């Protein structure tokens, strides 16, 4: 849930990158970390296995600068994608203000994408959250792979974007689509805040 | 029942003794205790352990050697404590009129059995 401090005019939001194993969630964060100036990011925390599979989460704090007079900070998290980390995915998802679903564009991964997307909705429901109210952006990663190995953006959209949310093709390893995805989720989350409809906003007010 | 139960009971049987505890000096946690109803053993343990530790460090800094016996006199009672080679400290809470000499003897006896 967004933290808003009216006294110091600061907003902090939590964005979770979700998706099946090896779809590129951590790669997104690594790319962002590599591009952002030092004074606008915190240290990246990666709780991973020895083979660099996310074990618990990756975490990257970003300073988005001043937006409408509020210093805006985004905390980016990834979840572990492998199926047996279900319990830890639930924990990381708690309190998320927005979700980026990173799908693996490889044709053979379609089943995993759908299963992970369903898992996301199930976890939100378990927290008593209507998934339709959660800001969501879809990223179709690995669009740089050979054409015969991947599904097109349109095919992926047909398969999982039944809500008609913003969607972006991407190549997170080299960068295309990463920035666009982040901008889009930031826009959706902040739009929700500006409408005053974000549930659970904690307001710090000084008398 | 713990290995310390009878020792603590023996201490608490002394006239004027309200409570006896064995506490960990490092953690300030109760290892075992003999308390009356309503006594806050956790608080006594934490603060007594902290006090004993400070006394031990002070004695060390002043090159006085090990602390043999610690006694805190207050308006409505006193706290006595002894510690040995281990991390354990034996603490007694007593009335103002309690016989400190006897308590001291019993504490040393208890410490001997502990070590």
């Amino acid at each position, binding site marked *: *849930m*967004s*933290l808003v401090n009216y006294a*110091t005019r*600061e*907003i*902090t939001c*939590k964005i979770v990158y979700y998706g099946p194993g090896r779809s590129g969630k951590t790669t997104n964060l690594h790319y962002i970390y590599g*591009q*952002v*100036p030092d004074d606008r*990011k*915190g*240290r990246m*925390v990666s709780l991973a296995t020895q083979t660099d599979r996310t074990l*618990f989460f990756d*975490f990257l*704090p970003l300073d*988005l*600068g001043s*937006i*409408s*007079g509020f210093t805006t*900070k985004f*905390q980016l998290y990834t979840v572990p994608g492998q199926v047996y980390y279900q*319990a*830890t995915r*639930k*924990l990381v998802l*708690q*309190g998320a203000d927005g979700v980026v679903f990173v799908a693996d564009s490889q044709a053979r991964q379609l089943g995993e994408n759908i299963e992970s997307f369903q898992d996301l909705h199930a976890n939100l429901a378990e927290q008593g959250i209507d998934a339709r109210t959660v800001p969501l952006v879809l990223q179709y990663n690995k669009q740089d792979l050979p054409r015969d190995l991947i599904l097109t953006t349109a095919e992926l959209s047909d398969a999982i974007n039944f809500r008609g949310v913003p969607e972006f093709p991407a190549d997170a390893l080299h*960068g*295309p689509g990463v*920035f666009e995805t*982040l*901008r889009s989720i*930031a*826009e959706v989350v*902040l739009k929700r*805040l*500006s*409408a*005053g409809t*974000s549930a659970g906003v*904690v*307001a*710090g007010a000084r*008398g | 029942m713990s290995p310390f139960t009878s020792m603590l009971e023996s201490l608490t049987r002394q006239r004027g003794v309200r409570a006896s505890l064995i506490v*960990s000096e490092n*953690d*300030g*946690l*109760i290892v075992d205790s003999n308390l009356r109803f309503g006594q806050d053993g*956790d*608080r006594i*343990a*934490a*603060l007594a*352990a*902290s006090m004993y530790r400070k006394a031990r460090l002070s004695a060390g800094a002043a090159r006085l050697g090990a602390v043999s016996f610690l006694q805190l006199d207050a308006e409505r009672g006193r706290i006595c404590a002894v510690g040995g080679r281990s991390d354990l400290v034996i603490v007694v809470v007593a009335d103002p009129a309690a016989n400190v000499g006897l308590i001291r003897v019993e504490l040393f006896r208890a410490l001997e059995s502990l070590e």
Partner: protein
Amino acid sequence: MNIATVEPWVEAPLRRFVDDARARLALLLHPSGQVIAQAGFTREVDVMSACALAAASHATAGELGRRVDGHAFRSLHYAGPDRQLFLSPVETARGAYICLTVFNAESSLGLVRIYFEELCNDLAAAAPPLPAIRQPTIAADFELDLNRNLAALFGRHHP
């Protein structure tokens, strides 16, 4: 020790706790990992990482407890060679928070625990109720600022 708070009513209870318990560092955070107050940290970026990890540890302990016997574990204690860590939830009228305390040989687990209980009581007493009316947080035309800032964030290296 410097204390920085998002919620001003937290400052006095936290300061009292840090002084009484002789803590080296303290964090009060929301279970989602957002910082509410901190004491002793010198870099804001370290605070955010510590909050994320503390929230994760707390959530993990709770879930582990539920899996073991159906009841969430509440407090955690980690002991290191020089420092120790105590992590425990705090209930207030503003909701549940988590308190992370780091201490060394100047204090002890027992001391931290007894003063933590007092902190819980102080926070419960000090917490004002949630405001009834939620105001819109930012202007409806925030996109200009957002795009400008994101471009600045990525502009130099964006492919």
